[in-house]
Each structure stands twice: as structure tokens, then as C-alpha cells.
């Protein structure tokens, strides 16, 4: 049974991907994609029911993985040659040499290492990848059809597109289930390659440029990963992640040595999660079709980075290094929230907000208390759902109105009522109680309070977060009174939106259950103490209490009452917007009565405060400071 489940979640996507690559028939593709999504979702749920496990597939697979490693490295090397990118070339060459030496000379006597192991953290990740990722793949069906209609391609490129999308899901599942670090390295490289191919999918000038940047940054991370693994093997004598975690305290006592590979691995995680100074690859990735952005930002790729950092957290708990990780995370959280506040491009806001939330997860891993790790895991889960939802919404909006600028979404409710409400749910679940994201943020801030600088940055960052979400939500509503036009939308686009919106609310409602059954056991496994007790479904500890159900009930009742009151508004009660008594509305566009009776439309825009939050203003400094923190982190041990 277990074999089958791991096969379905990891290997099946690889096989399906291969089929999709050669299949050119549209309807068959649709059926296969929906069926794969269904199977993946069911398999991930079944795996969750089964609980923790260890699995060693036949030894021949080890050889296959090694072969796969070299194939990927040669493909990347080839790309480096073709693009004449020195960084990619040299880094890949270094990886090839190191891997060759490691595989064939160092690992001579073969110690059997289980390839897969899963605890609740892995299982949560598999759920996120399989459910959110599959929904995005389904959304891709409708989206890509319309996308290619716009482009007037002579020959559909969808086989290639879905090949990499589905491959991505398999690779991510493999990554989070991997126990043997070399297996993890293979899947890690797979995701790098997939993201490169998908970012460059449209093959425009800018897509090529941005995909190349994504590649070199991730190859840098991949190199750090490989060297980290080799170094870790040298120190611990094993490649089994589970064994390293189990013996964690022993290494922590031994002191400094373990921190060098930890730094390399955490650094690899930071590049994958697009932390400063590597944030530009993720913001550049939005040139790709929307399902790609949604996938990269929510359930795959960037989550691999934070997964690794959270996974390793128990090993570096209580070290100076951990404090620096917290500091780095908190700084990136603040800096990228500020960058998000300066953007009017909807996808860029989402991108910076993703980086900001990932940074918060990293900060939690660095704070490294049971409560903070709980916050990190919950953030991974809730962020994946809400962020996927928001990306899919922006994609749907962009295809309809032809712009991703939030200024163009003013009064969207009158044009796309359903999508607007779903977007609103996405935004509110990102920033307000009683939803899961905010609860996790509450845990993060309360557990940070011992580290003063970290807390100051978290406080400032959360203020900025509210700023950029709130105004986006607000301007969507600036629509005149009246029945909005009914909205048409492909069912493969609409269904994922509805399902994700429902999940965003429903899983928040279930958060005490999620905590008790999924998060608390894994935290207790590595940290000995449980951070919260659950009484009547409310989170309680000596530090604080988060009363979920009373809040849900009271805010829910309040919201219901408010909606009921709002429904009572009739057409006769509608007033023209206030224009100082000089209003003149022409064609439904509100404005002023100008000289000679002319109509002067009223236009307004958000404050983007480019002098504070503009990319040109901030990016350079953010990168310099982030780099400085990284360098101090690296050499801090010597002090």
C-alpha cells in the first residue's frame, strides 16, 4: 500500500508528464490532467491517514537517481553553453566534478540509506503540493487555451507546458518525502530545471532573460546544496536525513562543525525561496503564464526552500546561527513588505508578498522555539492556499480586462462579480483574523518577543502588509450600484477558484484540528514540548491565547448582520459620490462639472510612495544589507 502511495505521488507524475509531452489531443489531455489531479489528491489524503513511514525502494533506483543527477547537470551545462552564461557554466561544472568525486570515490562502500521517510511535516507538504498544485494544473487547462488563443501560435506548446507542470508536482513530492539527501538533491535540481523551463515558456526576449536569471540563482543554490550534503556526510558519516535529525542534539553539542553544512543548506533554501538578494528571480518569474506563477509561489519551488530550512531547524536550534537566520528572515520580511507597498502591478505585489511571507517562515525557523516552528508550518499551509487563490484570481482578471495593474481593477465588482468576491476572500484570509495566516503571524510575533530586533522588524512589516492588501481590496469595490453583469468563465478556471476559496476559510476553521493532529506531533518529536494546549478549540499557552471559535462566531455573526443590512439598500437610497456639490455623471463615470459645463472625470490613485518604497529606491539597499547579514552569518562562527 505504502509503496503504491509513494509511487503515485512521486513517480506517477513523471510518467504522466511523459505521456502529456507526446500527446497532442486536447480533450485527452484534459481528461488525463483532471484524473491525475484527482488521483494525486486522493493519494495524498490516503498517505496522511497512514501517518509516518520509512521506505526503501529497490537498490536499482539509486543508480537511476545518480543517472538523473548527471542528466540534469548536463542539460543545465548545455543551457549555460547556449546562453553563454559564465556563472551557470562554472557552477554546474563544479557540481559535476564534486558529484562525480562524491558518488564514485567517497561513497565506495555502499551503506543502504532509506530513500524516503515521512513525518507530519512531510505529509503536510505532500498535501499542499498535491492538492493546491493539482488545482493549479487543472486551472491551467482553461487558462492555457485562452492564453494560446491570444498568442496565435502556429503549433500549440501546451504539451511542453503541462509536461513541466506535472513533472514539477512529482519532483516536489519527491523532495519533501526524500530521506536520502542525494535523492533530495536530485529532486531539488528537478525543480530548478522545471522552473527554468516554465519561466521561459513563452520564449519572448524578457522570458528568456528572466528564466536565465532564475537558473543561475538556483544553480548557485544547487551548488551550495550539493557541497552542504557532501560536507554533512563528511561530518556525520550518513546521508540519511532522519538519522541526522535524530542525532541532532549530539551534533549541536559538538558545536561549530555542523554549522558549516547547515549554512550551505540554509543558503540553498534561501535562494530557492527567493530571499534578498536573490528576490529578483521570483519577481521576474511573472513573465510566465499565470499557472506557473501560482505554482512557483504557493505550493512548489519556493516552499521547497523554506521546507528545507524548517526541516533542519532542530539541528541548529540554540546556536548563534539560528539567531542570524531569525534576523535575516525578519529583515527580508520587512524589506519585501515595503517593496510590495510600492507596487501597483498586481502580480508584483503578490510576488513581494510571497517573498515577505517566506521570510517570515524563515524568521520563525530561526527563532526556533516550539511555538515558532508551529507558526512556520501553519504559515506554509495557509499561505499556499491563499496565495495560489490570489494568483489564479489575478490571472483570470488579467485575461478579462487585459491588465494586471491594480489601478485598472477599480470597480471590478461590476464587471467580474464572482471573481471579485473570491479575490476579496483571498485578500481577507491573508491579513485578517480569525483566518489561519493571521493566527500563524500572531504565533510568530508572540514567539519573537524575546528577540527584540526581530520583533521590531516584524511589527513594522505587518503594518506594511495591511497597507498594501487593504487598498487593493478597497478599490475592487468602487463600483456603481446596480446588478453586476453576469460573468462567464471556463469551468476549469472557476472550479479551482471556488475550491481554493472554500479551503482558505474551511481549513482556518479547522486550524485547532490541523494543529493537534499534524503540527503538534512533529513539533513534539523534535522539541520535546508542545507549544499550545487546545481547550474548546482555542489556542492557549502561558504567552497568550487565540480564541478561534468565539472570534469566528462573533465576527461571522457580525459579518452576517452587516451583509443583511447592506442587502436592504435599495436603488432609491443610492446617492451620487460626493464631488463638493459640482458632480456630473456621464455614462456612469462620476466626475466634476467643469468650466463651460464640461465633464471632468474624477480620477484617483493609490499612494505608492515611490520615494520610500520604490524598487529603484529600496532594492539596492535591501540587497546590500541582506548580503551583509549573510556574510556575518557565515563568518559569525569565527567570532
Amino acid at each position: 500500500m505504502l509503496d503504491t502511495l509513494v509511487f503515485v505521488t512521486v513517480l506517477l507524475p513523471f510518467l504522466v508528464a511523459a505521456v502529456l509531452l507526446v500527446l497532442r489531443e486536447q480533450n485527452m489531455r484534459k481528461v488525463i490532467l483532471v484524473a491525475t489531479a484527482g488521483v494525486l489528491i486522493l493519494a495524498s489524503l490516503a498517505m496522511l491517514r497512514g501517518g509516518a513511514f520509512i521506505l526503501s525502494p529497490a537498490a536499482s533506483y539509486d543508480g537511476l537517481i545518480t543517472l538523473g543527477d548527471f542528466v540534469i547537470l548536463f542539460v543545465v551545462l548545455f543551457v549555460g553553453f547556449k546562453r553563454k552564461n559564465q556563472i551557470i557554466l562554472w557552477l554546474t561544472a563544479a557540481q559535476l566534478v564534486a558529484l562525480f568525486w562524491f558518488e564514485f570515490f567517497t561513497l565506495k562502500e555502499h551503506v543502504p540509506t532509506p530513500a524516503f521517510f515521512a513525518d507530519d511535516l512531510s505529509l503536510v507538504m505532500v498535501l499542499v503540493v498535491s492538492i493546491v498544485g493539482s488545482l493549479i494544473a487543472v486551472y491551467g487547462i482553461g487558462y492555457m487555451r485562452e492564453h494560446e488563443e491570444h498568442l496565435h501560435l502556429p503549433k500549440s506548446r501546451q504539451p511542453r507546458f503541462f509536461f513541466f507542470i506535472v513533472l514539477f508536482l512529482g519532483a516536489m513530492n519527491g523532495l519533501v518525502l526524500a530521506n536520502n539527501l542525494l535523492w533530495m538533491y536530485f529532486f531539488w535540481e528537478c525543480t530548478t530545471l522545471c522552473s527554468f523551463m516554465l519561466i521561459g515558456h513563452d520564449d519572448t526576449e524578457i522570458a528568456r532573460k528572466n528564466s536565465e536569471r532564475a537558473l543561475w540563482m538556483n544553480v548557485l543554490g544547487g551548488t551550495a546544496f550539493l557541497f552542504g550534503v557532501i560536507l554533512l556526510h563528511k561530518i556525520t558519516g550518513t546521508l540519511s536525513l532522519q538519522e541526522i535529525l535524530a542525532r541532532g542534539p549530539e551534533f549541536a553539542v559538538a558545536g561549530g562543525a555542523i554549522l558549516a553544512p547547515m549554512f550551505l543548506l540554509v543558503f540553498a533554501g534561501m535562494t530557492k525561496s527567493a530571499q534578498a538578494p536573490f528576490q529578483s528571480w521570483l519577481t521576474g518569474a511573472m513573465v510566465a503564464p499565470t499557472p506557473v506563477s501560482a505554482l512557483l509561489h504557493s505550493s512548489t519551488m519556493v516552499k521547497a526552500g523554506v521546507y528545507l530550512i524548517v526541516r533542519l531547524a532542530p539541528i541548529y536550534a540554540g546556536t548563534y546561527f539560528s539567531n542570524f537566520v531569525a534576523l535575516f528572515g525578519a529583515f527580508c520580511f520587512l524589506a519585501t513588505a515595503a517593496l510590495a507597498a510600492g507596487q501597483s502591478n498586481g502580480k508584483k505585489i503578490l510576488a513581494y508578498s510571497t517573498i515577505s511571507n517566506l521570510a517570515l517562515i524563515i524568521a520563525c525557523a530561526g527563532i526556533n522555539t516550539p511555538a515558532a516552528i508551529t507558526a512556520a508550518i501553519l504559515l506554509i499551509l495557509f499561505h499556499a492556499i491563499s496565495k495560489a487563490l490570489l494568483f489564479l484570481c489575478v490571472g483570470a482578471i488579467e485575461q478579462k480586462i487585459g491588465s494586471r495593474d491594480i489601478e485598472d481593477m477599480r470597480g471590478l465588482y461590476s464587471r467580474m462579480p464572482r471573481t471579485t468576491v473570491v479575490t476579496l476572500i483571498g485578500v481577507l484570509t491573508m491579513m485578517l483574523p480569525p483566518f489561519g495566516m493571521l493566527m500563524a503571524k500572531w504565533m510568530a510575533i508572540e514567539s519573537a518577543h524575546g528577540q527584540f530586533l526581530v520583533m521590531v522588524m516584524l511589527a513594522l512589516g505587518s503594518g506594511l502588509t495591511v497597507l498594501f492588501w487593504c487598498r487593493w481590496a478597497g478599490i475592487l469595490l468602487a463600483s456603481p450600484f446596480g446588478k453586476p453583469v453576469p460573468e462567464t468563465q471556463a469551468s476549469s478556471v472557476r472550479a479551482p477558484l471556488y475550491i481554493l476559496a472554500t479551503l482558505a476559510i474551511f481549513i482556518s476553521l479547522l486550524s485547532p484540528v490541523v494543529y493537534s493532529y499534524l503540527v503538534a506531533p512533529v513539533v513534539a518529536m523534535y522539541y520535546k514540548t508542545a507549544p499550545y494546549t487546545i481547550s474548546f478549540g482555542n489556542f492557549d499557552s502561558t504567552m497568550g491565547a487565540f480564541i478561534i471559535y468565539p472570534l469566528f462566531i462573533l465576527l461571522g455573526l457580525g459579518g452576517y448582520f452587516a451583509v443583511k443590512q447592506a442587502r436592504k439598500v435599495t436603488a432609491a437610497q443610492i446617492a451620487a459620490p460626493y464631488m463638493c456639490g459640482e458632480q456630473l455623471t456621464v455614462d456612469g463615470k462620476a466626475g466634476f462639472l467643469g468650466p463651460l459645463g464640461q465633464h471632468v472625470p474624477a480620477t484617483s490613485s493609490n499612494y505608492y510612495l515611490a520615494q520610500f518604497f520604490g524598487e529603484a529606491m529600496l532594492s539596492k539597499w535591501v540587497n546590500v544589507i541582506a548580503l551583509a547579514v549573510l556574510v556575518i552569518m557565515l563568518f559569525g562562527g569565527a567570532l
Partner: protein
Amino acid sequence: MISTIILAILALVLAPLAGALITGVDRRITAWLQSRYGPPILQPMYDVLKLLGKEPRVVNTWQALCAYVYVVGAALSVVLLFTGADLLLLFFVLTVGAVFLVMGALASPSPYSQIGGQRELLQMLAYEPLLILVFAAIATVTGSFKVSAVFELSRPLLYDIPLMYIVLGYALTIKLRKSPFDISASQHAHQELVRGVYTEYSGPFLAMIEIAHWYEVVLVLGLCGLFWSTGVVGMIVLVAVTYLAEIIVDNVTARLTWHFMLKSAIGTGVALTVVNMIWLYAQ
């Protein structure tokens, strides 16, 4: 459990009444400072009762919704304060109300309302981090973010974190939109933005916003009261002196720009916090 529910209901009912009275006194003192006679103490209540009886007028349905959610958020945060809940949670619930107030303002194309909404966001950006810092400082002293933990202290918070009280005062001046930070909307009729973030609200919806404001006044003064948790008399004196100071500042200062507000609030707030925390750790 039962006592919590009773406290919650008391807070829900008494807080707006207290808020109305305090606002009435505020108006009288302000009038006195400006050599006017001023309205009766109960005038804010008369105003709201009259507003409630008026015919509702809104630009669109969303505004009506937002006005009601604003009251719900404000009322709920007062309830959380009086039932001894988590300070940070209370703050987040307060944010729910604030966010919906701004969303309501942004839902109208009127430029006055739009700019008011944007400025209100900047005000939030200025006071939110300060409040989190104050709450974290309180948690450093009490070892918990729960309001109930404050009442287990043997000596008032003011002794340990006096500078945080100033930070709180700064944040609260911005939160209550008192001059010099009445940037997004002013209680007084002398603003270039008409009523800024409130512009589009009238009749019963404006009444809702007034009631939400009463709740917020009580919340704010309740937070100040936490700094003298060991005796009722001391608490009342502290709150009264603080509010009097707020009124005087409101009357003697002119409105500042949001640039100044943002820089001074964050700058002063963080600096005072750092000094206070170092002092606290050194003790």
C-alpha cells in the same frame, strides 16, 4: 466562563455609553479652551440618535457593509480587552474594523473619500507598529500577552516602561485622529478634505461610525489604564490626565503632513522603545 460572558455583555453595552459621555466632555473642554460655551454633555448621543432616524443614503452596497463591519470590529476589540484576552489578538481584531473603514472609503469614486482612505492607511501604518511594540513591552514585563496577566502585577507598568506610555500616547493620538494627526479625517469642521475617510457616510451609517468611534475611545483609554493596574483610583487619575493632555494637544497644535507623522511616529516610537527596553534589561 459565565463571568466572562457577563463581562463581555457589560463591555458591549456600557462602552459606547461611556464613550459618548467622554466625547461629550471632550467637546465641552475643547469649547472652554476656545472660549465657547459648547454643547450639552449628551450632545453626541443626541447626534447619533438623530442620525439613526435619517433616511439611509450610500454610494453603493459595499459601503453599508463596511460601516457595520467597522462597528463589529471596534466593539469586539473592546470586549476582548474587558474579558482579559490576548493583547495582540485584540489588536488584530481592531485592525479588522480599521481595514473595513478604509475599504468603505475606497469603494466610492469621490476623490475626497479616496484621499481620506489613503491617508487613513498611512495613519494605520504609523500607529500599528507602535501598538505592537507597546504590547510586546508589556509582555516582556508580565511574561505574557494576556491582559489578565497585567492585573497580576504587584506594581504598575508605568514604573517599568514609562517611555512605552509615551509611545502609546503617540499611537493613540494618531488612532483617535486628534490634531496634529487628524490627517485622514478631522472631528472638527476645518479640513481641506471635507471629512476625508468619512466623507461618503451619512445618516444611520455615519451613526454606526460614531458608535464605533465611542468604542475605540474606550478601548484606547482602557489600554492607557493598563499602565496603572494596581488601583482603581490611580487608574482613573492616569486615564483622566492622559485624556486631558490629548485634548490640550488637540487644541494647541496644527495639522501636520503625513510625511512628518510617519517619520516622527516610527522614529520616536522605535527610539523610545529601544531606550526603555535597554533600561528594562539593565534592571
